């Protein structure tokens, strides 16, 4: 569509203005501000697409028309803005276009007002708005990169790698696994540093420990010194006492007279001797009186002789009295034992049952051998019974299993109609072989039929090859004919003219004929040979097929098989399987029968063994005297009772024998004692108890013995007293001699002198002992202190009280030192505990382990990141290449326009894969987003893009005039000139361009390009010069 005339009636701006517009090329409209350029642009858009419902913002649009040229001819479009007071002829006041709607729609081709404003009619503001190109209708021309399978895969791969990389670390580096791990690593490192700072505390504690150990050593040293001091004072205190005693003793000893010798215990001995003299005299007198009294007693004896003559026999019986008492007691016990054993035996006989007497029990064999025999027989009997029961159970089980198997086999064999299983199996196998053979023959039949068909097809394919075209036969015929003619001619020429010429003609003829024959053989010979082979193979196949069909008929007989061959083979196979299984069952049944027979044989043997064992058992218990019907357990229990009875019987007999022997002894003694009793004076009569008689005899014997001993003793005493009296007399004399000798030894003439000398000697001895003790104490006090020396001056100047105070002071100091030492040890223990706690603290180990784990994970994630990054960068490269080679045509053209507008500063323009944004590349290959461009360059870019889209639409058949309203005012002079040249060039290529400007230099710039601007009048202040120019209207 071309715009050829604008007619506008706009109150206040244009009044019935008519602007003729060239249908091709560039039209420049120059006018100052408020000249109505924007109104004109809005008017054109309004007429084409309708005015806004509320009228123009400025309120200038009224009504008007546009004259357009389309393919169908020239039309005029009328339109009146709603509410406009102006009325155009032919226009409706309700914003209706009175032009043919079909012509307008045909021209616009779906372009709406919005798209028209974005692309075709734009002002300076539209040039600065990037989002004016982001609409779908525009974007489909700019960003419509055809992805295709490769682009899609690249996009998907890029998306996946980006997702994976974002999981590791996001572009802001604030989230992701790597970030978490890095942060955790930092935390753990900080924690580790914190823990490892414990080493410093350890050093401090160690220093404190060393200091304490030094303090302890010092305290110990001081403690030792004080202890030594205390020991010295205590030594003096302990030594001074004995030393002082020694000094006193020696002083007193010096004052006593020297008594070199004095009888030991002289005074005591004197006292003793004098008392002995008195005692000896008294004893001597008493003994003499006793001698006289005893002599009187011995002279009066009174005894009876009768008792003395039988005293020996009586003493013999009396001495056996205890034994006889024991014998009497034993006799009673044995009688009681006989009674008890008899009762027990009777009771055991009662338990054995009636008919058991002592003689029968005694005759029974209850020995250990008999017991073993009985137990062995019982065990054999029971085991035989048990074995028989087990075999019986087994026989029963096998018989039941065999019966079940036989019944199931009988049902299966019922279908064989009385035939044997082997015959049926052979029949089934033969049937299977036959069916297999038939199936193989049928398969071979099918193969042969197919082979015949294949051979026929081959023959059909070869036959056309065999037949050469007719013109070939014609040519070959000519060749053959000419060969014959030339050969004949050569023969004639050879004969008639020349042999050589004839030979040549003959050779030519032979050559032509041979050539024709050779060509025919060449083209047809091979095919005929293959055809012959096919024919031979077909005949052989047909013959074999015939033979095969005969065989099939023989196998099938007259009736063809019912059903498919494979189904029949499967059925035969199944039948064979069933029969084989039945055969196995039959074999198993036979085996079970044999097994059952063997079991039954074993059962018979077991029965015989059980019978033999029973017979042996019965014989044995009969021999023992038990009834045969007795069960094994009962028989064993009866045998036990019999053994008990036999044992009691033997015990009874033993008791009876013992009782009889004791009674015999007792009776013999009783008779002898009674005889002696009769011979004694005052002998007792019959009926007196034996033991009572012995008691009386014992008393009598004691009395006799006592009288004899009394007399003997009196005589001995008399002799003794006389001897004692003589001895005391001698002793008295000896003692007196000793007293006199004692006086001589003591140096005293009498008792008084002796006593004085004794006192002096005792004092001296006492003092010497004291001295000795004090010296011993002194030695003992010095013994533990070998390192200390006794200094006489110190002892003489020793003050006990002062020394005690000193000791007290030192002890207090020692206690203080020990307390300090204990406190120091306590502190040392605490420090060592602290040190040990630090040394054994495992927190560092745990943190270090976790840090190690985090670092391991970091290595893994870093590797993943490197993998993702490498893949992403490589994919990006591929993607960029893809983008460069798959950009839409509009963008490629826009890039050319931009390069021209920017004087080759920006050479490339492209859009990333799958995105709606533009990237510009400069002459050094650097890429920039649109937002980073300067305003002028951005406007140049958007103008280039618009012009490229216009060209793209034009190629799609949408041709509308381009209206540019001062869009290059921000261009520098050079780029403005380049842009103007580009616009002029585009206009020259057929694009109608209406350029409005208020800048004179731009109008002049167009003028230099040969475009004469249309000067719009200035409504506010008309100038005289304007009339000289080309004025609108």
């Amino acid at each position, binding site marked *: 569509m071309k715009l050829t005339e604008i007619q506008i009636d706009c109150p206040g701006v244009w009044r019935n203005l008519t602007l003729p517009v060239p249908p091709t090329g560039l039209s420049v409209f120059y006018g100052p501000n408020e000249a109505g350029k924007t109104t004109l642009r809005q008017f054109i858009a309004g007429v084409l697409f309708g005015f806004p419902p509320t009228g123009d913002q400025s309120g200038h649009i009224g009504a008007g028309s546009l004259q357009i040229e389309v393919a169908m001819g020239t039309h005029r479009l009328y339109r009146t803005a709603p509410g406009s007071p102006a009325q155009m002829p032919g226009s409706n006041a309700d914003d209706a276009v009175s032009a043919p709607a079909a012509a307008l729609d045909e021209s616009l081709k779906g372009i709406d007002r919005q798209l028209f404003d974005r692309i075709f009619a734009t002002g300076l503001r539209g040039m600065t708005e990037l989002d004016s190109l982001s609409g779908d209708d525009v974007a489909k021309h700019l960003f419509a990169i055809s992805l295709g*399978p*490769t682009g*899609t*895969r*690249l996009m*998907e*791969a890029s998306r*996946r*790698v980006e997702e994976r990389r974002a999981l590791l*670390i996001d*572009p802001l*580096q604030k989230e992701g696994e*790597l*970030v978490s791990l*890095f942060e955790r*690593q930092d935390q753990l490192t900080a924690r580790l540093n914190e*823990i*490892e700072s*414990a*080493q410093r505390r*350890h*050093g401090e*504690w*160690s*220093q404190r*420990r060393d200091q304490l150990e030094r303090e302890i050593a010092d305290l110990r040293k001081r403690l030792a010194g004080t202890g030594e001091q205390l020991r010295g004072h205590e030594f003096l205190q302990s030594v001074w006492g004995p030393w002082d005693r020694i000094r006193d003793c020696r002083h007193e000893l010096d004052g006593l007279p020297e008594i070199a010798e004095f009888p030991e215990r002289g005074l005591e001995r004197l006292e003793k001797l004098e008392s002995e003299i008195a005692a000896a005299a008294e004893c001597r007198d008493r003994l003499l009186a006793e001698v006289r009294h005893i002599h009187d007693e011995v002279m009066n004896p009174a005894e009876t002789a009768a008792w003395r003559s039988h005293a020996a026999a009586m003493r013999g019986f009396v001495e056996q009295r205890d034994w006889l008492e024991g014998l009497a007691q034993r006799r009673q016990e044995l009688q009681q034992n006989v009674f008890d054993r008899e009762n027990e035996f009777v009771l055991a006989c009662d338990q054995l049952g009636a008919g058991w007497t002592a003689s029968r029990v005694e005759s029974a064999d209850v020995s250990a051998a008999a017991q073993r025999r009985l137990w062995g027989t019982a065990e054999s009997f029971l085991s035989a019974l048990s074995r028989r029961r087990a075999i019986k159970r087994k026989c029963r089980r096998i018989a039941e299993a065999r019966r079940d198997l036989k019944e199931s086999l009988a049902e299966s064999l019922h279908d064989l109609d009385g035939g044997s299983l082997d015959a049926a199996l052979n029949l089934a196998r033969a049937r299977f072989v036959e069916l297999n053979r038939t199936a193989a023959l049928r398969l071979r039949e099918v193969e042969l039929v197919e082979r015949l068909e294949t051979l026929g097809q081959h023959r059909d394919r070869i036959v056309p090859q065999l037949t050469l075209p007719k013109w070939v036969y014609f040519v070959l015929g000519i060749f053959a004919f000419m060969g014959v003619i030339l050969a004949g001619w050569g023969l004639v020429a050879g004969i008639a003219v020349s042999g050589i010429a004839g030979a040549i003609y003959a050779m030519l003829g032979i050559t032509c004929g041979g050539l024709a024959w050779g060509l025919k053989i060449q083209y047809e010979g091979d095919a005929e040979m293959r055809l012959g082979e096919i024919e031979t193979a077909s005949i052989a196949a047909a013959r074999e097929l015939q033979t095969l069909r005969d065989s099939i008929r023989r196998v099938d007989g007259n009736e063809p098989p019912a059903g498919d061959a494979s189904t029949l083979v499967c059925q035969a196979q199944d039948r064979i399987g069933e029969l084989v299984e039945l055969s196995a069952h039959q074999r198993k049944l036979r085996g079970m029968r044999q097994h059952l027979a063997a079991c039954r044989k074993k059962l018979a043997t077991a029965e015989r063994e059980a019978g033999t064992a029973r017979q042996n058992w019965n014989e044995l218990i009969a021999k023992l005297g038990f009834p045969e019907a007795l069960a094994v357990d009962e028989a064993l229990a009866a045998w036990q009772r019999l053994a008990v009875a036999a044992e009691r019987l033997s015990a009874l007999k033993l008791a009876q024998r013992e009782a009889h022997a004791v009674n015999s002894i007792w009776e013999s003694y009783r008779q002898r004692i009674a005889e002696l009793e009769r011979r004694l004076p005052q002998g007792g009569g019959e009926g007196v108890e034996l033991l009572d008689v012995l008691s009386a005899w014992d008393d009598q014997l004691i009395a006799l013995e006592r009288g004899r001993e009394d007399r003997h003793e009196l005589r001995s005493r008399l002799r003794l007293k006389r001897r004692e009296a003589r001895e005391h007399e001698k002793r008295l004399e000896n003692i007196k001699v000793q007293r006199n000798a004692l006086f001589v030894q003591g140096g005293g003439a009498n008792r008084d002198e002796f006593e004085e000398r004794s006192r002096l000697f005792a004092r001296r001895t006492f003092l010497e002992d004291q001295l000795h003790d004090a010296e011993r104490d002194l030695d003992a006090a010095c013994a533990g202190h070998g390192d200390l020396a006794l200094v006489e001056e110190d002892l003489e100047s020793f003050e006990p009280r002062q020394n005690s105070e000193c000791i007290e002071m030192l002890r207090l100091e020692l206690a203080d030192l020990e307390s300090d030492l204990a406190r120091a040890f306590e502190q040392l223990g605490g420090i060592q505990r602290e*040190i040990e706690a*630090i*040394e*054994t*603290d*495992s927190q*560092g*180990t*745990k943190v*270090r*382990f976790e*840090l*190690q*784990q985090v670092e*391991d994970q*970091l*290595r893994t994630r*870093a*590797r993943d*990141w*490197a*993998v*993702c*990054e*490498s*893949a992403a*960068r*490589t*994919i990006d*490269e*591929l993607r960029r290449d893809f983008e460069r080679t798959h950009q839409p045509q509009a963008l490629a053209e826009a890039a050319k326009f931009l390069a021209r507008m920017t004087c080759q500063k920006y050479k490339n323009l492209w859009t990333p894969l799958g995105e709606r944004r533009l990237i510009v590349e400069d002459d050094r290959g650097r890429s920039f987003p649109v937002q980073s461009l300067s305003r002028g360059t951005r406007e140049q870019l958007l103008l280039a893009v618009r012009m490229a889209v216009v060209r793209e639409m034009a190629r799609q058949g949408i041709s509308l005039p381009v209206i540019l309203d001062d869009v290059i005012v921000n261009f520098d002079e050079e780029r403005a000139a380049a842009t103007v040249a580009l616009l002029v060039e585009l206009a020259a290529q057929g694009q109608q361009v209406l350029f409005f400007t208020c800048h004179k230099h731009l109008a002049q710039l167009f003028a230099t390009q040969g475009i004469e601007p249309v000067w719009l009048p200035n409504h506010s202040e008309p100038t005289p010069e304007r009339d000289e120019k080309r004025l609108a209207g």
Partner: protein
Amino acid sequence: MSSLTQEPIPTMDSFRCIHASRLLLDHQLHGTGTLAADVRNVVEDATFIGFEKIIDACLVHEVDCLLLAGESIDPANKGLRGPAALVRGIQRLAERDIPVILDAGDSNRWSNWPPGLRFPPNAHRLGTGFESSVSIARSGRLLATITAAETPSGAHRDITGWQIQLPEAHGTTRTFPLHDDPGPAQGIDRNATGSHGCVLLEFDGDSAPRQTVIATAPVRWESFEISVADTMSRDDLLQEMASILERTSRKPCEKVWLVGWNVSGDGELAKALLEARFCDELAADLAELVPLPGISVHTHSLRVQTSSQSVRSIKVHDELATEFVARLEERFARPTTALQECLMHSALRAGPWEMKMETLLAELDAGEVAHDACRMAMHWFGAPEELSS
């Protein structure tokens, strides 16, 4: 262990010592993965437990001295627990009057020794500024003189050798150089597989020196190769892994096994092993089988290996994948700088984590990164129908 002199010794007193190296007390094990609480306790204290076992071995075998080579404590570890444990162990031997000879190789390492910790009198440190040789005597009779030897080429850089001089009856001495490294007392990372501990050296009067390895490490690293066939199911793999563990001999001191599996093969099971969750569940099921009674088995890694680790080994499907592989190879043509460039051109540059990331990337194998990147991209490029949907 074979470099000891094998000549017979004519007459001399018997001499026994235990040789251990690189105790690294309180040094934590690398690459264990996440552990259960009871296992973690053992792993945390593994170096301590191992050292205690070495001391026990000294007391049980009534050795004449203990030789400790290499770093007994981690110099980077500022904690006190390691040095204190070392002192406690030496103190235990001091009660039996057993000397402990420490040769850290570099005597500067003792400069970091905590000043508050005092070595017992039976501890002898060799090196510059310390003792040059230690004489071991029993009942007033000289048994041996031990000195540090020159480090032989090929030995561990922290381990110096020993020279043991044993006096003979006729006044001469025999010298036994001891250059063998018994290995760390406790394996620290996954490369230190097998049992670890110390070596008992016995020098008898009439025979050559005898060496007995005494396992003391409570944590054992192991690595097993396992092949996955196409027909193998998950349970088959589980049983195979358990039987491999059961076949491997164990030591009484071992409480935890940290096992790494290198799985080779193709097929669905091998593909499933690329999923971390699948591997975790497999490892948990393996631990529940209790293949080693009394030992906790923990799987720290389960790697699926292809026949080659190069990028070229991955089959490419189409032009885009081929182009990707080519670009990736071009990027990693200089492996030393590829990862640094990766960081330099990333969003992390000049960010708060750049330094840490740079340190981590420096430890990575660029070839493995390239291989993984290729495999990841192939996984995406390999399913165009999925992507297009």
